């Protein structure tokens, strides 16, 4: 049994590992790579296994993806998207459903009930494919991308009434209902159903806001990473089951949970933990879509199938273009929007099966339609390529920056790692100067407290590459390292230098030797913990001894400059000698060298601008000359 599982895993992963890099290499995007891999290993290709079962399992990847998208979306941004979601989304579903139903009714001469159901199902697009493609190409934040997302969100909502409607449209004897679709709310009157649905949504919001944070805090305290990951998955799976039980779309539920948690301190940690699962499951899902394409049926009636696919895409494309125009999108964005949504969606598979069991459609028709939907999904990446290569260049841009920066959840420019006493001062100075930083800390109590004080602190272990990425290291300009442990600092610097070479690193160093190590690693902005404090104290000591304030201050300035230079010199020099000097002896020797060097520095330094000795001397000489003359 487990061998069979591993065998399957081998085939799927192998197919993905081979085909995706090839597809990427040719600039075709990962989705197409997965789909082709699926076609090759599927029952109609090499018949290595898989198909529908895997697809059901892999659909969870879509759920995870929506959770992640939710995490990226602050609630107020969602609120700002209400017009595209409700306006554009609703009209897309209505117009496309109407057009497709009418065509099916007139040309396909099916009963009106069946036509209506087909229209509704085919009006949906593929959330998984569209979002993955837009995300991969960095187009999700463009006008067209955002509107696509809005429409997909509405489609997820629209599935609920569809499920309720299908049984009412039954014309054939009802097959025994698929047990998968039995929900707790089945058979309840509509108002009770509504109440339960609203109650569930409210529960997710309230629990996400007030309970989940506390649970994560307790888990974070264990500092066991895998337990945190397990908890994150548990959360998503729990919501998925809850949603299924009350008959809502799990994707919608987790999306909502994501939005609620977008403001939480665990956001980046959750992102980093869920991301790999999402990636793999989504890939699996695309493979299974590819594998499910029934080439047997297609070769049986090639003209019918391709004709239907073309018609589906054309009808949806036209409807979308007209709506996009009506809602005031620029032409290039409208084309991106329309091309990205002109395909059938993965919900079609489930809904057609449900419609069949509800007695609205005959098996012959659902089989044909499922093939059409799967093929249209496979066409989606090709359409994106056409759009990207042939259409958008005519507009001179890919419309990347169409959206104002503040519309997107803009990643911040600075990341501060460690928000103890040290990081806290840095963060406050930046904040007081109007610069918002992303703050990371591992102490969950500290995070909790600082959040209450209004700081944007996230719980997370900055030594993890994925977490840094989730915190926006790719887009940030500077990274402030304010933790104490030299080994942790060393690792963090290494990770950053390797993965984010553009980042300006500013690091704290506890001791002189730590500063040397950082300089060796190529960090130039190094700050020793006690240096400035000690200098200030020393300055005050000089004043107490009778130095004038400005004089003492200048001495300290000269000393600082000299010491910083000398630090850098010693950092280079010490390598010749370290072989025979152990740590502690080295420290003593360093100190010795420093002290000997220091003695005359302040005198030597030229501070002579205000020195009038030479002027007086010359004036005296002049006076003598005059006296002689």
């Amino acid at each position, binding site marked *: 049994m487990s061998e069979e599982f591993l065998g399957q895993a081998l085939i799927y992963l192998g197919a993905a590992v081979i085909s995706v890099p090839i597809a990427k290499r040719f600039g075709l995007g990962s989705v197409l790579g997965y789909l082709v891999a699926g076609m090759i290993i599927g029952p109609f290709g090499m018949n290595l296994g898989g198909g529908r079962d895997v697809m059901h399992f892999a659909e969870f990847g879509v759920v995870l993806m929506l959770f992640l998208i939710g995490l990226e979306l602050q609630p107020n941004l969602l609120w700002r998207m209400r017009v595209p979601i409700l306006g554009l989304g609703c009209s897309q579903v209505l117009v496309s459903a109407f057009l497709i139903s009418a065509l099916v009714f007139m040309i396909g001469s099916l009963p009106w009930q069946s036509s209506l159901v087909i229209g509704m199902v085919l009006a949906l697009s593929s959330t998984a494919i569209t979002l993955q493609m837009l995300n991969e190409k960095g187009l999700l934040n463009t006008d067209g991308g955002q509107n696509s997302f809005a429409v997909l969100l509405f489609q997820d909502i629209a599935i609920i009434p569809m499920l309720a409607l299908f049984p009412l449209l039954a014309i054939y004897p009802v097959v025994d209902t698929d047990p998968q679709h039995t929900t707790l709310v089945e058979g309840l009157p509509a108002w009770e159903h509504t109440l339960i649905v609203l109650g569930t949504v409210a529960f997710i919001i309230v629990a996400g806001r007030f309970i989940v944070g506390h649970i994560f805090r307790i888990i974070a305290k264990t500092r066991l990473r895998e337990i945190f990951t397990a908890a994150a998955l548990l959360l998503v799976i729990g919501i998925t089951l809850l949603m299924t039980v009350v008959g809502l779309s799990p994707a919608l539920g987790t999306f909502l949970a994501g939005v609620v948690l977008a403001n939480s301190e665990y956001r980046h940690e959750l992102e980093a933990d869920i991301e790999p699962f999402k990636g793999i499951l989504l890939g699996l899902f695309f493979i299974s879509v590819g594998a499910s394409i029934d080439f047997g049926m297609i070769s049986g009636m090639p003209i019918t199938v391709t004709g239907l696919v073309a018609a589906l895409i054309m009808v949806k494309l036209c409807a979308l273009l007209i709506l996009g125009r009506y809602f005031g999108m620029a032409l290039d964005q409208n084309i991106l929007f329309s091309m990205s949504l002109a395909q059938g969606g993965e919900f079609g598979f489930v809904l057609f099966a449900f419609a069949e069991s509800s007695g609205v459609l005959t098996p012959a028709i659902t089989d044909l339609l499922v093939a059409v939907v799967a093929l249209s999904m496979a066409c989606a990446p090709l359409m994106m390529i056409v759009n990207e290569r042939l259409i958008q260049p005519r507009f001179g841009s890919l419309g990347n920056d169409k959206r104002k920066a503040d519309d997107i959840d803009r990643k911040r420019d600075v990341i501060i790692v460690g928000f103890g006493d040290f990081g806290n001062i840095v963060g406050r100075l930046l904040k007081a100067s109007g610069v918002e930083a992303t703050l990371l800390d591992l102490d969950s109590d500290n995070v909790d407290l600082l959040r209450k004080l209004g700081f944007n602190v996230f719980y997370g272990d900055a030594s993890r590459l994925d977490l840094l990425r989730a915190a926006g290291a790719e887009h940030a300009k500077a990274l402030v390292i304010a933790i104490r442990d030299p080994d942790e600092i060393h690792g963090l610097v290494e990770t950053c230098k390797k993965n984010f070479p553009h980042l300006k690193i500013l690091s704290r160093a506890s001791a002189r030797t730590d500063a040397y190590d950082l300089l060796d690693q190529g960090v130039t902005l190094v700050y020793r913990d006690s240096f400035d404090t000690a200098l200030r104290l020393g300055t005050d000591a000089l004043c107490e001894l009778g130095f004038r304030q400005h004089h003492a201050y200048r001495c300290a300035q000269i000393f600082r400059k000299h010491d910083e230079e000398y630090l850098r010199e010693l950092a280079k020099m010490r390598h010749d000698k370290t072989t025979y000097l152990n740590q502690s002896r080295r420290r003593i020797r360093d100190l010795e060298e420093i002290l000997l060097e220091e003695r005359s520095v302040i005198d030597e330094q*030229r501070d*002579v*601008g205000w020195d009038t000795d030479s002027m007086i001397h*010359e004036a005296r000489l002049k006076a003598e000359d005059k006296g002689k003359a």
Partner: protein
Amino acid sequence: MEPYISGKTLILFAHPALQKSRVNKVLATAVRDHSAVTFHDLYEEYPDYHIDIAREQELLEAHDVIVFQHPVFWYSIPSLLKEWLDQVFEHGWAYGREGNALAGKTLLSVMTTGAREDAYLGGEKSHTIRELMAPIEAMASLCGMVYPPPFVVHGAHLMTAETMEKHAADYLRVIDAISLGCIDFAKAKSLPRLNMDLDNLIAKPSKQP
């Protein structure tokens, strides 16, 4: 006084709040990347007023024309520029028996005033810019430097973007002419400000010496 001076230009730029500047920003942008110019932003280099004297003197020695560019603050130069002068123009280097490091170089002031030109017409109630800049002129003279009339942009407070661009173009023209050695400072001697009559001062390219 040699009429034509050419060579490398060091611009000592002194504006304590460049982020708020309107006029000096435009002027500086016009010239800072000129191939014959070293642009030296003093408030950026020495935020703590701790000036590296040796470095500054080296810079000065390596250039032929020194430009002070600054807004007029209280009829004078901004404080860091004054501090810079106090520190860098040392006795025995810039002046005095052995001090001749700057002799023969040219010092040009480029400044902006908030008030309009009619506040600097001289007479009973006001002083001209040249009168106000007498300390700088005297200092230049003590160090053996040539001090042509300053390049003054008046009326910064209410200046429109177009006018700023016009002044910036003039500034660039002067810097360019200096690098080519085709500006006649001797002719400018009695002008209240250099940028009054540039067409007359700057030789047409064909007539270049």
